[in-house]
């Protein structure tokens, strides 16, 4: 019962934050509502007993990625008038319809009989920081045993990204 209340609360927060990104013309509002959206998303991950992912979501998105976005928006100092007026071209409408149709198909499939509508029983999993499932230990074991090669490759990718970001943004060093 409380789980349902929390789910609808978090889902409403996620969708409200996400829709602000679409509706607001000013990117700084979009960025701030995206922070809120990601916070509620972390709540949804907690409901799915993925506590570590929820914390990573807050740490990486709210703490680093969104701060980067806001920084760039402040550096460029984008004003409403510089964004150009809102235009509805033919292809935009086509794209919108296509996107909504895709989402509708996904939702229709999700409601279909292919997926179980109830999950494994977990008494009070919301508030219980379980040691095993979703905890640091289980994720760490999978990450460092089964997925160790992709993990190491990711570190290489991050290095490339750091160098690329510095070179592209700074021009000459």
């Amino acid at each position, binding site marked *: *019962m*409380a*789980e349902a209340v929390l789910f609808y609360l978090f889902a409403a927060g996620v969708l409200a934050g996400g829709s602000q990104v679409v509706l607001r013309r000013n990117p*700084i*509002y979009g960025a*701030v509502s995206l*922070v809120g959206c990601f916070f509620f998303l972390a709540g949804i991950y907690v409901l799915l007993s993925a*506590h*570590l992912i929820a*914390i*990573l979501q*807050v*740490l990486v998105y*709210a*703490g*680093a990625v*969104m*701060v980067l976005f*806001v*920084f760039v928006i*402040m550096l460029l100092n984008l004003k409403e008038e510089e964004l150009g007026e809102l235009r509805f071209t033919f292809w935009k409408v086509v794209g919108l319809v296509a996107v909504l149709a895709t989402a509708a198909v996904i939702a229709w499939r999700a409601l279909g009989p292919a997926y179980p509508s109830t999950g494994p029983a977990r*008494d*009070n999993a*919301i*508030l*219980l*920081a*379980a*040691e095993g499932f979703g*905890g*640091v230990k289980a994720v760490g074991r999978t990450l460092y045993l089964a997925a160790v090669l992709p993990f190491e490759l990711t570190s290489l990718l991050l290095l490339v990204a750091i160098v690329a970001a510095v070179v592209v943004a700074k021009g000459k060093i």
Partner: protein
Amino acid sequence: MQDFIDNLIRSWGHDPAAWPWTQFLYLAFMGAAAFIVVNFAAISAGIFSWAERRVAARMQSRVGPNRVGPFGFLQWVADAVKLLLKEDLVPAEADAVLFRAAPYFMMVGFACVFVCLPFSHKLIVADLNIGIFYILAVTALIVVGIIMSGWSSNSKWSLFGAIRSAAQIISYEIPAGMALMIPVLLAGTLSTQGIIRAQGGWPWQWFIFDNPAAFAAFFIYFISALAEGNRTPFDLPEAESELVSGYNTEYSGMRFSYFFLVEWGNMWVMSAIATTMFLGGWQLPGLSPARFDALTGGVAVIAEIASLALFAFKTLFFVFVVMWLRWTLPRIRVDQMMNMCWKYLVPASFAGALFVAAWMLLVHEAPWLGQAMRFALTAIAAVTVAAFALRTLKNLRDTGDKFDFTSNW
């Protein structure tokens, strides 16, 4: 806390897993706990504002606030009432929505930390198994609040202060996080209570004296925490000689007081984290956690209060050190601040983490080495503190100053 509520429900004759109101009772207790910790944060921040002014006055041979209440103790209440009654101004050119929302972002990010912050053996809101990671994550919200306040004020000083502050906090988060990972490595858990339990009551059982890298990590963390809390010598975002007051320049009334509530409350947070991670937390000397758990009746209550007092004493000592540093060190320049972080603290913290990993393997093979290192480091620290005390006493004798706590105060 969950065990406590479950037992409460059982005492009412229900099964916690089946009773439909269990989760609502959890929510009610969470609300009550949130109310308590937010008020604790606000009141301690208020008291620190008074303490800081008294300490500053003492260090500068002034009197300080001494009119409201004994020793001016109620000055912070008077200030809070004044700020509540002041008009809440929003500049005409400011972005009103973000301007109003920014202080709340900071307050939320600050108050969320208290969920995982231990106070004593049993006193903690929730002992999450990702405790310290959670604390690192939620403080990120403070940066968002600072950037919002600086940008929405539509003022040069606010914007410069916010950009400096955001760059500073994000940079120093890396050495702070890496330094905190060293006690996590040693304890093998991220839970704050688990890290305290992995230490001991005596100084040589604390993680700070475990090995040289942990010793260095404590200082790396403390420096980074000072920078993250915008405390001197890293108070560049609020440098009043350059930026008026930084990101909070345009604020007034209650919203202005939120910024300072967060700043002073952060002193408790950073000191409590240092105490938890490096200084043995609430562990009483000679009482192992297992025996602590087994205590019952009046002895348990006394031990609980003693552990609370010990934790508060250690934390308040570091709060005092933070104030002491503020009135001792001058402010550094922006480039010096960035150099210090990226050229010294970040490589040092990474090297420290590697060293601790190797050290743990070594100690696993030769346990006597770990013991010897603990005692050696504790002895070095004790000698340093004793030398400092002797030197201070000698200086006091030479200058003729007395511990004059009566006439000036």
